[in-house]
C-alpha cells in the first residue's frame, strides 16, 4: 500500500562538499543513504530517515543537513500534522502506534516554573571551592531514633540499623535493561556508576554473569512482572533489589522486547529462547493486592538475608500517593516514582502521551503524604522521569526527593538524540540495538567517561547552587520548600507543589 504520510525529515546534501566517501551510507542502518555508481554520487531517501543526526555528525565534509520536512497539510488547530499522520499510519497498518523515549508533548514542565533561593547578608553563602559541600546520601529505611548506651567515653549504638545504599551524589542511572539497550551501553552505565560512587539499575533484563563480579557492587537489580534473568546470585550480588510495578512512560502495561532484539546473549541473560518476544505481563501475576506485594517484598528480603534495601518502582498516576503510603507500610525501603515524561525503549504512543502525572507534582505529593503519616523516615524517595539538568535535580531534592534516577539524560550523554525510534532496534548510535555492527560503535571506555563527566558536572553545579543557598549538606535541602518559589503557576499548582509564589 502506498503511504500517504510525508517524510518526517528532509535531507540536504551539499554536492560541492560531498566527497562520495559513502560514510553516510555505512552510518545509517535504516538505509537512508545509497551510492549510485552510475552517477558516482550519493542519494538519500527522506522516507527512511529517523532524524537521529548520526550521518550529519560523522560526515567528514560536513556536507549533510537533516531538518524537519517543511511540507504541510492545510493548517488546522484541531488536526495537527502529527494527528493526521498518526491516523494515516494506522489506516495503513491497522496496528498500535509504537514509539520510544519519554513523552514529547507540551505538558507544563514545572522545573521551568520553579526558582531557587540564594543567601544575602543575614546568612552567608558558602563557597564550594573553599569549603566542604556534602552530597552524600543514604537510600533506605532510617530508624525513628537511635538508642545508645554509654559507659565512660564508650558509646554503643543499641538500635539496629537498616541496610542503606550510600551514594556520593544524588543521581543514579535509571532502569535500562540489557536487551532494550546494547551490551556496550549497559556496560558503560555500570562502569560509570562504579566510578562515580553511584548505582546503575539493571532493568528487567537480568545481569550478564560475567559482569556480576565487577559491577554487582554498584548494581540495583530489578524484579519485574516477566521475572527475566532472576536467580539467587543475581539478587545477592546487587546492592539493592527493585520491584518494578510500573513505568512512567507506560503506566499499566508491561515491558515489550521484540524477538528481533533477543540475541543469543540477551536470551542467555534473560533465560528465554533466542528470538522470542520477551513480553512482561501488565501486572505481576502474583501481586493482585497490597498484601501480595508485601509478600514479595518479604520474600526478596528473605532471599537476600535482610542485607539489602528493597525498592518498589511505580508510575506516578492519579492516586499514587496513597498507594505509595501502602507500599511503605508493606515494607518497601525505597519508593521509586516515575513521572509522565519518563523514557522507554518501546511503548504505545497513546499510553506514553496520555497516562500518568508529572514527576514534579508527584514528588511533592508523595513527600507530603509520607510526612503527614509520620512514615517519611521509613522509606527514601527516588524520583524519575524527565530530569534534564542539575537544576532539575536540586529542585527535586527541595521538593522532597532523596535522589533521582536519570535515564534519557544518561543516554543523551552517550550520544542519543531522542529520535524516538528505539523500538526498531536499529539505533545508529549503538545504544538501543542488539545488532553487533551498530552496538560496536559504542566504545565502553569513551561512553562511560562521558557518563562520569555528566555526573561530575551536575554534582559540581549542585554544590554551587547549594552553597549559594548557605547550605553545606544536601540533607538540609531535602523537602526544604522554603528555598523554592513558583512563577507563572496557578494557585492549585503552588498548593500541590507546596511552594510560595515568587515575591511572596
Amino acid at each position, binding site marked *: 500500500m502506498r503511504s500517504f504520510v510525508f517524510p518526517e525529515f528532509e535531507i540536504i546534501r551539499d554536492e560541492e562538499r560531498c566527497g562520495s566517501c559513502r560514510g553516510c551510507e555505512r552510518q545509517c542502518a535504516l538505509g537512508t543513504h545509497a551510492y549510485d555508481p552510475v552517477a558516482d554520487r550519493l542519494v538519500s531517501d527522506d522516507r527512511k530517515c529517523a532524524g537521529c543526526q548520526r550521518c550529519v555528525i560523522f560526515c567528514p565534509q560536513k556536507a549533510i543537513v537533516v531538518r524537519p520536512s517543511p511540507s504541510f497539510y492545510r493548517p488546522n488547530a484541531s488536526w495537527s500534522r502529527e494527528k493526521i499522520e498518526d491516523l494515516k499510519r494506522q489506516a495503513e497498518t491497522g496496528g498500535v502506534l509504537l514509539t520510544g523515549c519519554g513523552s514529547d508533548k507540551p505538558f507544563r514542565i514545572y522545573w521551568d516554573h520553579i526558582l531557587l533561593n540564594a543567601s544575602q547578608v543575614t546568612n552567608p553563602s558558602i563557597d564550594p571551592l573553599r569549603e566542604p559541600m556534602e552530597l552524600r546520601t543514604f537510600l533506605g529505611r532510617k530508624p525513628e531514633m537511635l538508642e545508645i548506651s554509654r559507659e565512660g567515653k564508650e558509646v554503643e549504638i543499641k538500635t539496629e540499623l537498616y541496610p542503606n545504599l550510600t551514594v556520593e551524589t544524588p543521581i543514579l542511572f535509571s532502569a535500562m535493561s540489557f536487551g532494550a539497550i546494547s551490551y556496550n551501553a549497559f556496560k558503560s552505565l555500570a562502569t560509570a556508576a562504579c566510578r562515580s560512587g553511584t548505582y546503575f539499575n539493571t532493568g528487567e533484563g537480568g545481569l550478564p554473569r560475567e559482569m556480576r563480579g565487577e559491577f554487582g557492587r554498584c548494581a540495583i537489580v530489578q524484579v519485574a512482572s516477566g521475572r527475566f534473568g532472576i536467580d539467587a546470585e543475581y539478587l545477592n550480588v546487587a546492592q539493592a533489589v527493585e520491584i518494578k510495578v510500573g513505568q512512567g512512560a507506560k503506566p499499566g502495561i508491561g515491558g515489550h522486547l521484540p524477538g528481533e532484539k533477543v540475541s543469543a546473549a540477551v536470551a542467555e541473560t534473560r533465560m528465554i529462547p533466542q528470538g522470542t518476544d520477551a513480553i512482561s505481563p501488565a501486572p505481576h501475576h502474583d501481586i493482585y493486592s497490597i498484601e501480595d506485594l508485601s509478600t514479595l517484598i518479604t520474600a526478596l528480603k528473605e532471599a537476600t538475608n535482610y542485607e539489602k534495601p528493597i525498592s518498589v518502582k511505580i508510575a506516578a498516576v492519579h492516586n499514587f500517593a496513597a498507594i505509595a503510603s501502602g507500599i511503605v507500610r508493606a515494607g518497601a525501603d525505597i519508593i521509586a516514582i516515575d513521572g509522565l515524561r519518563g523514557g522507554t525503549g518501546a511503548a504505545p504512543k497513546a499510553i506514553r502521551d496520555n497516562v500518568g502525572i508529572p514527576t514534579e507534582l508527584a514528588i511533592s505529593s508523595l513527600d507530603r503524604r509520607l*510526612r503527614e503519616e509520620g512514615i*517519611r523516615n521509613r522509606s527514601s524517595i527516588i524520583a524519575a522521569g524527565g530530569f534534564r539538568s542539575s537544576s532539575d535535580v536540586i529542585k527535586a531534592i527541595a521538593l522532597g526527593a532523596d535522589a533521582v534516577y536519570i535515564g534519557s539524560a544518561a543516554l543523551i550523554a552517550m550520544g542519543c538524540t531522542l529520535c524516538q525510534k528505539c523500538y526498531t532496534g536499529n539505533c545508529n548510535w549503538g545504544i538501543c540495538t542488539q545488532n553487533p555492527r551498530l552496538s560496536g560503535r559504542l566504545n565502553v571506555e569513551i561512553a562511560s567517561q562521558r557518563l562520569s563527566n555528566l555526573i561530575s558536572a551536575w554534582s559540581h553545579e549542585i554544590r554551587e547552587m547549594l552553597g549559594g543557598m548557605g547550605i553545606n549538606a544536601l540533607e538540609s535541602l531535602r523537602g526544604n520548600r522554603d528555598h523554592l518559589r513558583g512563577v507563572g503557576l496557578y494557585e492549585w499548582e503552588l498548593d500541590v507543589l507546596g511552594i510560595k509564589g515568587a515575591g511572596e
Partner: protein
Amino acid sequence: MDRKRRSRRELYTKEICACSIFGAMNREGDRFTGEGVMKAIASMRVRGNGLGGGFAAYGIYPDHRDLYAFHLMFTGPTDPARRAAKQELEAFLARKFDVYFDEEIPTDDSVFVRDPPLLWRYFVLPRKEGEDAEMTEEEYIVREIMAVNSKIENAYVFSSGKNMGCFKGVAYPEEIGEYFMLDRLYRGHTWTVHGRFPTNTQAWWGGAHPFGLLDTTVVHNGEVSSYGTNRWYLEMYGYACTLQTDTEVIAYAADLLMRRQKLPIEIVAKILAPPIWAAIDRMDEKEKRLMTALRMTYGPLLMNGPFAVIIGETGRMIGLTDRIRLRPLTAATRGEIFYISSEEASIRLISPHLDRVWTPRGGEPVIAEMKGYEKGSEESYEKGSEKSYERIC
C-alpha cells in the same frame, strides 16, 4: 479553608534575625538577681535593634518549685480581645490542669515598651484523665502547650518549666529587664539573655527569645537555612512550629533529642552540628560507624547555616555553634560563675578578672553544670566543672 491552604503551601513567614546572646550560671547553685546580665547584654546593644529581648531565669520560684509555671501572653489587638483569649485559655486550663495559683506578671509600667500584651502566670499540675493517664507528665504538658499555641487564637504559652521562667518582649533586652523588674524581683542561679536584630519590622512579643518548652530554653543568634527540612521532621513528631522563627525549631529539636529520646548532649551536638564527611571518613571504625549512623538517622535535624545558641536547662547551660562556626561564641569562668556570651567584652564588663576565657570550636558544645547535676543516666561528668567536648569514643 484559609488555614488549610496555608499548611499545604507551607506559607509560614520566617523571621530572620541577628542577635546577641549571654548566659551566666552559678555552679554552686547560689542565686543572684538579673542586674549583672542586664548590664552585660546592654553592652552589646549594637547587636540588637530594639525589636526583641528576653531572659530565661532558673531557680526563681522556690516557693512553687514543684509546680509547672506557665507564662502566658495574650496578644489581641484590643483589651477585650486579650481578655477573651484569657477566658478561653482559662477554660482550657480548667479542663486539663489543676491551677494552684495565678496572677498577672508584675511589670513596671513606667518603662516604655511598645504594645505590651496581657501577661499572666499560672502555677499548675497536669490532670491526666482517661487514656492520658498513661502519658508522662512531660509528654502531656508538651501536647497541651502545642494545642494552646496552635489552636487558641492570641494566647501563647512562652514558658512552662518548674522553678524557672522566661520574660521577653519587643524592646532592647535591658528595657525588658526593667519592665519585668528582673533586677529587683527575681533571684536565679542561671540566667540566659537575648538581644534581637530582626530584619523585618513585624516584631511581635511572641517572637522574642528565649523559646522554652518545659525547662529547656534556647537563645539563638543566627539563621537556619535548613528550617524547612528541620520543621517537617519535627512536625512528624508532633511539634507544631507556630512561632515563626528558627529558634523554635532548635528548642523543639533539643526537646525531642534530649528529653524524649534521652540522648546525651555530646551526641545531640553531633546531630545539630555534625562533623564533615571528610573528617568522619578519617575516624577509627567505631567512631565512624557512630557518626555515620547519626547523620543517616538524624540528617533532617542538621542545623545548617550560621548559628550560636545557649540552651538552658535546670542545672545546666550549653553553648553551641554551627559546624563551620559562622557566629561568635565565647566562654569564660570566674570562680563558680560560668559565662557564655557572643562577645568577651560583655563578660569582662561585669567580671573583669576571669580565671579562664576560651573560644569553643565549631560544632563543639561548651557545657556548664551545677554541682550535683544529674539527669537521666548521664554519669561521666566531673561535677561542677566546665569542659569543651573533644571526642566521645
